[in-house]
């Protein structure tokens, strides 16, 4: 979903399309991202509401198939925030663009691994191979087109204008707040699985005694 509009702007620019059409494609790319974020949020919260045990999958001790999905969601959030606040971050367009592509590829690869390795919906090698091809195909075409034909300089032009602007205090404050929340979230994820005091044997014995198993 995200890769198809990402291909279009490059093709549009390279073949002399009107800038207004390019803007619409970029808006489409942005809006599809919001839709994906909403779906990811519903997926995570919905599963926890339906089945509270799935909160175990948000811990750092979760299996890689689930941890990859958590990391992918965080990366997707970073991509979105860094795009919305590109001017405030005061990063060169080229550097931002490279990070945007790199993080997008990482998010898609991690999400694909999550779907394939979780094994809930794809249980044969053929299905897995077809799925990976469907996901990787548009991404590779998009990446190939950008390398072969070069990318739009629209963002670079915008960046030149934005670089002269000073960071508005309210938006700068929001950015710092979001960054702080991100750091706190990572600390929470790490600390969440830190065991209680005592040896592991004691804890297992207490656990069993509380549940009356032995």
């Amino acid at each position, binding site marked *: 979903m995200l890769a198809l509009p990402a291909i279009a702007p490059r093709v549009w620019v390279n073949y002399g399309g009107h800038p207004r059409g390019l803007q619409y494609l970029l808006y489409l790319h942005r809006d599809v991202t919001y839709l994906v974020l909403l779906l990811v949020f519903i997926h995570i919260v919905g599963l926890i509401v339906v089945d509270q*045990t799935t909160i175990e999958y948000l811990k750092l*001790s979760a299996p890689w198939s689930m941890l990859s999905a958590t990391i992918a969601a965080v990366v997707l959030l970073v991509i979105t925030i860094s795009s919305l606040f590109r001017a405030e971050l005061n990063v060169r367009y080229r550097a931002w663009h490279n990070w945007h592509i790199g993080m997008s590829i990482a998010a898609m690869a991690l999400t694909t691994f999550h779907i394939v390795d979780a094994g809930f919906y794809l249980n044969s090698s053929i299905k897995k191979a077809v799925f990976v091809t469907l996901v990787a195909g548009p991404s590779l075409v998009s990446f190939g087109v950008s390398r072969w034909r070069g990318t739009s300089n629209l963002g670079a032009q915008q960046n030149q204008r934005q670089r002269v602007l000073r960071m508005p205090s309210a938006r700068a404050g929001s950015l710092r707040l979001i960054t702080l929340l991100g750091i706190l979230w*990572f600390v929470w994820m*790490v600390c969440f699985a830190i065991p209680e005091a005592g040896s592991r044997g004691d804890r*297992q014995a207490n656990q069993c005694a509380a*549940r*009356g198993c032995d």
Partner: protein
Amino acid sequence: MRLGSIAGVVVVVLATILYRPTMMRNAELLPVAFEHLDHVDQNCVQCHHNYVDDTGYDSCYSCHKHDLSVALKIEPMFHDFCRTCHIDKAALGDPSGPFRVCVECHNEGGRTSQNLKLQKG
């Protein structure tokens, strides 16, 4: 800026990889509602492999949770072992155990083989 960003990513990735095994070893076990009587048509050694290969002792957790050589694999080993069998049975249209919703196996109220033993005692 560029070096700082790359260094930040490297630190987070390394911290995750290095710290994760410790967390996995220390993670608390979820309760499992395993009904032994529902599994008596299976060959005993399919689960109790230590009866024939002399690789373990006592309960499953004695090795699979506490032995460092297999403790980090407990999640995929147990889940693949139970779920694969349940999925195969469901695919054949036979009565099968749960394989999708976590709480169907991981719940406090379910009868476990150990609970049955206590009830009989």
